[in-house]
């Protein structure tokens, strides 16, 4: 009995002490915490519009106004997470056209002082009533040009109707989005 007590006492103490004092963390490298980053990729809608021939009319004369434009401030481009952590943006622009003429699209990104940072130009293919034609355009801004986005605050969309003989009637539908990649 004495031997059993002695054995149990010693073995219990040994196990308890061994486990507690040998308690340590192995096979890990905590310095890796400095490499931890959040890298979200966000798909974000930007601008939309759907216009017909009335938007191309001069309100005073009723004549065709071949060049129209509008400006939208994108205030979020000035936020900290864009200024510090944005690594790339892939813009996507899509026009669906039933006007029977080509239309030149110019999308410009301007700074607060209206200095042009970058621009995306392309020709919207002509469509027809009942036969909409889709034109798509991508613009990838990677790390080497990302400052252009960071300096931008305004997005200007301009449309210029190209000359033609057919009646200028139809609709133009615009969709746009940005694929924003961050590294926090």
């Amino acid at each position, binding site marked *: 009995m004495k031997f059993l007590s002695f054995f149990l006492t010693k073995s*219990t*103490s040994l196990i308890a002490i061994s486990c507690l004092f*040998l308690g340590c963390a192995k096979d*890990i490298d905590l310095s*890796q915490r400095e490499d931890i980053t959040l890298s979200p990729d966000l*798909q974000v*809608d930007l*601008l939309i519009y759907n216009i017909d021939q009335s*938007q191309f009319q001069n309100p005073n004369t009723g004549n065709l106004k071949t060049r129209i434009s509008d400006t*939208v401030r994108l205030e979020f481009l000035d936020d900290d997470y864009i200024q510090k952590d944005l690594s790339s943006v892939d813009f996507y622009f899509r026009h669906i056209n039933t006007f029977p003429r080509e239309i030149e699209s110019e999308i410009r990104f301007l700074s607060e002082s209206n200095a042009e940072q970058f621009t995306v130009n392309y020709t919207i293919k002509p469509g027809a009533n009942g036969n909409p034609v889709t034109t798509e355009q991508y613009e990838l801004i990677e790390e080497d040009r990302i400052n252009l986005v960071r300096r931008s605050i305004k997005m200007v969309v301009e449309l210029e109707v190209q000359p033609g003989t057919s009646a200028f009637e139809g609709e133009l539908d615009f969709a746009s989005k940005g694929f924003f990649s961050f590294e926090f």
Partner: protein
Amino acid sequence: MWRLICFFLLFSSTVLAQNKPLLFNVDDLPQTLMSNPGAQINFTGHIGIPLFSQIHVSAGSTGADLYDIFADDGANINSRIQETMRDMDSRDYFSVNQQWEIISLGWKLDKKNYLSTGVYQEMDAFVYFPKDPAILANEGNSNYLNEPFYFDDVSFTGEIMTVYHLGINHKFDKRLTVGARAKFYSGIFNAESTGNTGRFTTYTTPNGRNVYRHEVVDVDVLINTSGFAPLKDEEGMTVEQATAELLSRSFFGGNVGFGLDLGLSYILDEQFILSGSVQDLGAVFQRKEVENYRYFGAYETSGIEPLFPDLDENDEAIPYWDIFEDEVDRNLRDQTTNQSYTTWRPIKANFAMEYGFGPAFLPCHYLSVKKVRYMNLLGMQLSGVKRPKGFVYAFTTYWDRKINENQRFKLSYSLDDYSLTNIGLMYTRTFNKFNVYLAANNLLAFPNLAKAHSASVQLGMQLIFNN
């Protein structure tokens, strides 16, 4: 008798909790009265060494361990984090519980009654892994189009408090011992956010206005805090100042609450003993230094729509962004209020059956009723804690061995959310009246805690009187 068993089992199925199983039903230790005020006890008085009678720390994570994140294997840590987050789900949790006994004492009033009292400080934090918001922050919405991110996943509780308690252990007859402990809680800090709702989804819209539609539906996220606002407002507060501020609330200066522990043990026959307890049936009324942060609303958008021309009727540029922002602010709102709230303590419960063999006889004492004790006890214990999304259970089997009158150990094996190989060990030794004890769970994990999902340690020292 069987009615009693049925009652226990029924009760166990509704409220069960994990709570220091190695100290449960250890009749040599006064700490057993803290987990079951109706425990069978085998001493006539005790005085804890102030600040050292019980130090308890436990921490656990069901979904990830340190190795999962920080493995030194040459791989990219961010890939490991991403993989680990994907493997976890919103019912995985992280928990930390710490108790520090400041004062503990007790004495036999007469043959049937033992009074115990004391003060301890407790910190308890329980955080469910907010999977959807975490993945949205880490990966974004691009790989999760048409899949909702649920804000319901945000659920956590955290509190620091001082507990003043007074308990009575009453030997009803030779079979039944019952006990109760009244508790007064002095809250130092509390933060909780439970029952949140809402989801954010980015839908692809092939026939819609834009490529996507971003939709936020039924968002209602509420974070209640008490004791946080003064710390937040004090700019430049040092850690020492913040600690002093928190400690000043320990002595009835903070938010107060009341609670009750109940317990019993019943000797079915000479060798079978049933015992059960419920701890912390109580609440804290958060009235002081309260701040509530609420985010709520619903909104959907496919982008900003310019109107052509870009000048309004006053020939001024149309502020599309401001209009958009106002609309978002009207629909997705945030509020900071100072409304009192009540927090229920995490109820803990234990139920145990044990079988004793190898009888030994105690020294005779006029205050001691229990005449026979067993050198060996084989037992099983079901336990758990009520948490915001349900009960967290543990099932423990144990061998409780009295080596001699002064030494005892308890070897346990537990099944719980953290591990299937949780082996625990408790050892206690008394030198004359001076007792020390040490208990640790999940011993197999101690050689490399980086791969452990949980670990817990209790230790303490006190004077225990038997005559």
